[in-house]
């Protein structure tokens, strides 16, 4: 019985997904996305010109370090967390805790 369920289950899931795909594609093409419509005028503009293509990366990284240093420090702590997580999961369980 669960064999049937798993076989028909994946076909049913496929069907649901195709329907969702068609629905959302229709939705995206019909209803226009309000891009930046609600942006307030108080927003400081730090735009980077797209023309000299090679310099975008350098200017974005300068923006990142000047304005988002706090989030970068947080991200460093997340990397430390991930390292500790992997150590906790992969260390052999002897008495050397």
């Amino acid at each position: 019985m669960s064999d049937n369920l798993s076989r028909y289950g994946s076909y049913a899931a496929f069907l649901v997904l195709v329907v969702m795909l068609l629905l959302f594609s229709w939705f995206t093409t019909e209803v226009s996305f309000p891009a930046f419509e609600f942006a307030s005028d108080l927003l400081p503009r730090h735009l980077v010109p797209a023309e000299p293509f090679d310099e975008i990366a350098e200017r974005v990284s300068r923006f990142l370090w000047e304005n988002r240093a706090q989030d970068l420090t947080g991200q460093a702590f997340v990397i430390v967390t991930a390292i500790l997580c992997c150590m906790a999961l992969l260390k052999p369980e002897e008495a050397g805790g």
Partner: protein
Amino acid sequence: MEPLMPFLVSVVLLFIIGLACLMVKRDMVRLLIGIEILFNAANLNFVALSMQKSGFVDPFAHSVVMMAIVLDGCVIAVGLAMAVNVYKHYKTLDIRKLRRLKW
């Protein structure tokens, strides 16, 4: 102004492909790849929306994407470490065999 609609449709497509991968596939590593696809769809959305002013790029979205890529990598790393442990216990990477906890 760059046309926004093709990008949004491709983001929706990627997102649904990611959800399909999560629902249909039975190998654990493929589930983790599905999660990766979901995160990448959201990152693509950020980048596509940052180009909405003609000739200019908003660096805020790009910095968010750079940080989100690292965070997503951490999640996948921990997921793979957990998959190693599952293999040690169940001797298989088939998620349909993980049914011992019921009710």
